[in-house]
């Protein structure tokens, strides 16, 4: 019923989709698989009208369509449900379901009776009994996701696209969602399902299409596709990026973590990190792998003190017990964290390059509270040179720089504190290949200087190339450890998705 032919799309000169074909039959669940950056999300965004400038043809129910906005796509019955739900939490459930398409009897007056009849009918199908007049925000994520599906059905959606719907759900909730999906399928809805969890893809889908580096690798009926083939399709690219040569310079133990527990920062009553123990040495790059929601970022935040004293467990720094208190305290002790979202938690847009670099080490240039502008500028200049940050002037606003240079500014900020332990969460996220290479080289340089580096990156080839050792996290626990020699993409991916035990300890 839906056919996409030869879809090609580029962003500012970089081609992200090359002649991708995709088709969807009536009443099928079609999984879209691929690594990060493979082009899944872009393809979906083209289909549901977010990106409207692309080459290629989309045929829906026999007619050629070209959506200019998500509203246009929704009118034809194509609705996407993203991980970030589009519900207004402060409105009631019923208002959300009909938001923007209220049923009206007279202009300006909502026909609540008609709305609630329709909504109840939809929700009854789901086996979901909730109060339609209750505020949406009080419901947990899984229920709100269902409400979002109900919203899609209220607009008579024929194609529902679900982008990573299960990453924030527990097993029972996943099962519930799947039974709902099967239900929709039987009613003639077609679903496109995007997930990183292969076990789920095999469980729910009828067909699988794999994208890699913006190209379609293949489409196959699920029952005819072996998991090994799927993994090979997903990761089997020839590594195009250059990595600096790997070397070993392992030193003494720097940081040891024993039985660490970190509570869920979103307020859910569960541990996001459960009973994690590891040690990190000087001159070592320790890679952390795991899917979204595996708790790896939270692990870094916990160690750095972002959650204050909430964490439980023992941490030793140079053999001395270290109690995590606050980011400020950790910085003093030489532990720093590069967060994975430089816009939200890294850059300070309103102040210039110098000030962004020196903010974490300002005490050094202001021993009695007065900032020494000369010393500050010199230090900033030193790191700008060292990291080869390209800019017009030190007084420039950071917002005007490219992603790679912005990332280097934050790295400069942390180097300025003269750290001993670097926690790097996605240091190469959203930056171009050249800057990535620079950052790998820098990491190797720091490693040679005896710094201890913990690294998260969702780009597996990158992790494999630079890390000395790998810890794989699955749902808050370490499920596997590999040395540089024994690790392969397949092994890491399997471990990251494996770990059958779905236990959640509530406290």
């Amino acid at each position: 019923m839906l056919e996409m032919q030869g879809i090609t799309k580029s962003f500012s000169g970089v081609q992200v989709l090359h002649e991708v074909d995709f088709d969807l039959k009536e009443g099928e669940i079609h999984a879209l698989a691929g690594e990060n950056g493979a082009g899944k999300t872009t393809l979906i965004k083209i289909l549901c009208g977010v990106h409207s400038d692309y080459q290629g043809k989309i045929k829906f129910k026999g007619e050629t369509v070209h959506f200019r906005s998500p509203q246009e796509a929704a009118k034809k019955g194509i609705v996407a449900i993203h991980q970030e739900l589009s519900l207004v939490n402060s409105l009631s459930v019923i208002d959300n379901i009909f938001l923007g398409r209220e049923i009206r009897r007279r202009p300006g007056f909502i026909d609540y009776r008609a709305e609630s009849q329709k909504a109840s009918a939809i929700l009854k199908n789901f086996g979901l009994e909730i109060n339609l007049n209750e505020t949406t925000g009080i419901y947990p994520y899984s229920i709100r996701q269902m409400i979002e599906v109900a919203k899609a059905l209220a607009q008579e959606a024929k194609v529902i696209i679900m982008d990573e719907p299960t990453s924030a759900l527990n097993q029972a909730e996943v099962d519930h969602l799947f039974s709902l999906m099967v239900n929709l399928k039987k009613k003639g809805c077609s679903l496109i399902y995007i997930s990183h969890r292969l076990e789920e893809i095999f469980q729910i889908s009828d067909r699988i299409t794999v994208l890699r580096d913006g190209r379609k690798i293949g489409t196959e009926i699920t029952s005819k596709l072996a998991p090994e083939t799927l993994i090979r399709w997903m990761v089997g690219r020839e590594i195009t990026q250059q990595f600096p040569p790997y070397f070993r310079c392992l030193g003494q133990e720097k940081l040891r973590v024993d039985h660490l527990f970190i509570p869920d920062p979103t307020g859910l009553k569960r541990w996001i990190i459960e009973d994690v123990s590891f040690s990190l040495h000087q001159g070592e790059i320790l890679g952390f792998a795991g899917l979204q929601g595996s708790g790896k970022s939270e692990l870094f935040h916990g160690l750095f003190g972002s959650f204050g004293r909430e964490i439980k467990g023992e941490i030793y720094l140079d053999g001395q017990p270290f109690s995590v208190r606050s980011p400020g305290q950790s910085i003093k002790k030489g532990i720093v964290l590069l967060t994975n979202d430089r816009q939200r938690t890294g850059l300070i847009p309103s102040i210039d390059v110098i000030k962004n670099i020196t903010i974490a080490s300002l005490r050094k240039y202001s021993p009695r509270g007065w900032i020494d502008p000369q010393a500050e500028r010199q230090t900033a200049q030193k790191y700008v040179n060292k990291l080869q940050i390209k800019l017009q002037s030190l007084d420039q606003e950071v917002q005007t720089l490219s992603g790679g240079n912005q990332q280097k500014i934050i790295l400069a900020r942390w180097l300025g504190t003269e750290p001993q332990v670097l926690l790097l969460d996605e240091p190469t996220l959203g930056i171009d290949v050249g800057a990535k290479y620079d950052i790998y080289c820098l990491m190797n340089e720091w490693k040679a200087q005896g710094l201890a580096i913990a690294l998260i990156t969702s780009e597996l080839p990158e992790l494999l190339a630079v890390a000395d050792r790998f810890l794989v996290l699955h749902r808050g626990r370490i499920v596997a450890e590999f040395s540089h020699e024994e690790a392969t993409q397949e092994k890491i991916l399997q471990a990251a998705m494996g770990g059958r035990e779905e236990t959640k300890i509530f406290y």
Partner: protein
Amino acid sequence: MFLWCQKKIKNNFLTIFRSPLMRATLALIFVFLIGVIFNAHGAFFRWDTHRDMFRHISVFAILACGMTIVIITAGIDLSVGSVLGFSAVLFSLLTIQRGLNPILALFLVFLAGLGCGLISGALVARFKIQPFIATLAMMVFARGLAKWISGGKKISTAILDSSGVYRYVEPPQIFNLLNSKIFNGNLAVVTIIFLFCALISSLILGKLRLGRYFYAVGGNEEAARLSGVPVAQTKLIAYGLSGLFSAVAGICQAAQEMQGDPEAGLTYELTAIAIVVIGGTSLAGGRGSLGLTIVGALTIGYLEKILSLNAIGEASRLMLTGAIIIGAVLFQRARK
């Protein structure tokens, strides 16, 4: 060649034009020019006019110093007018009625203002109450305090005796001192006090680590926190300083009126915010400077002065001021 020159000039002009300070100054010059045109038979060209304008705007401008700091941290302080009233009453009470040593009285009033600010600050920083709400509560509370300690009456030099007759006392020396003019009567002392406050706060904002923290917290609070900035302390100090400046303004106000009026400072917080915003400091936080606030204060000051010089009625004056504030803010935003 000609085109190239023209383009270059245009570019240079644009760069200068883009700086917020330049924009604010242009707005000020514009207002000033209006004054030159509608000079009320030359009244605008007399120094007295300007001196009185400075004197009149000084109290507001002192409030705006603290307000600038709070707004840079992405907050707002609605309590400055009430804290001013409270401080004015307290100062009059201590000096006129109790006859306290003026230095001691000053110190106590500073402490009171600082205390009010720190309470707002604690509500914002420690208990994470929105600045608008926290300082709104402090605004109401401080007004109540002012009325409570004064019994709802103005504290003036006329003191009601036990026998039921008013007895007039000499105003304390400090009142006369604060209300005098120096340089042969060419500059009011309150203006000097404002300049001193402006100097202090611009040093804090421009030279101190604390000032940098104000900008960082206002620009991106989470990033600042993760860079080791003590966010809660920084906010606490910002509101504390605002309270302190309000106390200074309250003392000046009391001296100018020769009494402590529990109603003093009503709606002054709005003028203080208007001054900061007209200067171009963004309510979103993280940007701005005291220089902008000074320009903003002069703009508002001249505007009011010119309108009153030309005997424009209060009704039109208020409406014009409202319209001009919007005009100035739109003008500021055009740079984006």
